[in-house]
């Protein structure tokens, strides 16, 4: 597509008195001959012929695409700046709230997590009891469970420490962890360089009571 762009000078006016108009245009003809004349309101026949004789380009009743004034632009800009500052504050507060929900947010529970129960933990979890078959724990943070796990664990934290029964379903960062690697003793499961590393915490099962 081939196109050109011009900036055109426009003289917009309204006709109240035909004589006045014509004398005004006669005196300022040199100025107006390069302008586009826009006449709003009524356009009498005499003026129309006058404009044609003078070979002036004109439009009648035309709504011009006017740019905004500098003042309006300035106030708009400052309003936008203020708005941006406020939204940035809100975003920062949200990030802070989210990080405080994830960090420094430890849930300590001594409930037996029975079948059918579903726990959703936003921070870290320290559970001092069993997780029975048919129960689910979803944790965004770290998980430590001191008694045997027979249910399902979904952990997305940096590490988890638990003992799993063969019935358990342990998923760490979306990866299923083999139950027999977690059997009979407390194990530490962590993510290092995109690799899941399992290390037994103690050689024997410890008695927490």
């Amino acid at each position: 597509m081939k196109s050109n762009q011009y900036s055109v000078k426009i003289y917009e006016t309204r006709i109240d008195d035909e004589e006045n108009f014509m004398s005004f245009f006669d005196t300022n003809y040199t100025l107006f001959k390069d302008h586009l004349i826009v006449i709003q309101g009524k356009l009498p026949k005499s003026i129309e012929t006058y404009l044609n004789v003078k070979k002036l380009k004109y439009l009648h009743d035309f709504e011009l695409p006017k740019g905004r004034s500098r003042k309006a632009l300035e106030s708009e800009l400052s309003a936008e700046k203020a708005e941006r500052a406020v939204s940035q504050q809100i975003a920062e507060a949200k990030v802070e709230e989210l990080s405080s929900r994830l960090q420094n947010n430890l849930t300590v529970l001594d409930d037996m997590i029975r079948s059918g129960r579903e726990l959703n933990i936003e921070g870290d979890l320290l559970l001092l009891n069993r997780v029975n078959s048919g129960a689910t724990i979803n944790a965004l943070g770290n998980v430590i469970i001191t008694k045997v796990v027979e249910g399902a664990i979904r952990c997305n934290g940096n590490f988890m420490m638990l003992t799993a029964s063969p019935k358990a379903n342990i998923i760490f960062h979306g990866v299923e962890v083999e139950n027999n690697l977690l059997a009979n003793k407390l194990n530490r499961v962590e993510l290092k360089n995109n690799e899941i590393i399992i290390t037994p915490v103690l050689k024997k099962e410890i008695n927490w009571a």
Partner: protein
Amino acid sequence: MGIVIAVISGKGGVGKTTATANLGLGVALNDKKCVVVDFDIGQRNLDMILGLENRVVYDIVQVMEGDASVKQALIKSKVNENLFFLAASQSKDKTVLESDKVQKLVTELKEDFDFVILDAPAGIESGYEHTIEFADAAIIVVNPEVSSIRDADRAIGILDSKSYKVKNGEEVAKYLIINRIDADMVQKGEMLKSEDILEILSVKLLGKVPEDKGVIDASNQGKPVILDKKSLAGQAYLRIASRLCGKKVDMKDIEVANSGFFSKLSGMFK
């Protein structure tokens, strides 16, 4: 003022109704006044196991709706004058139960009886919730198998969250009956051990009942097995009923098969 005990299991077919009938009769044999209530609306069984099916005139729904008084609906046992029975409706379903009506009935029964034993329906739906809602204690009946344990675990979870007592900051006492234990299978490691079940469910053990073919025949005849002095299951229920009445009865280890030298020897001379 008596105590209200709900007999629950989660899973069906583990022997809830049989346990209810035998425990009811068992505490009655201990000279306690007892009423057993069938809460399994729409699928009533307890009347048959107690041998009272031909005596049912009014049922629990009619009492709760005010169509009959509690006195009219209560059926006296043929075998023990301390035992009474309140039948479930066979035509309605579980949705007819309403909390305030259940509470009214249970409170009324509590005033007249030492023991009010409620036979809960299987499952964890509204019928189950209404049964446990106003219970002071629950007896959980399980079989030594994983599906029964998991369902019982779920039922206990609901008991711990929906019971009236728990909602008011108190605790519901929970007791466990392990039913249908086969000593041979436990010894071979094919059946869950009691210790493991107690570990998983973490409730107090009330008693263990061995597998006993006599139970089916007893149910069919409408004579609870507890009346059969020779039956192993009957003896087990007697011990459990005595424990319920506050007597100290030692746990009998029924998980060791009764096939020792002496029993074999005695078998030879039969």
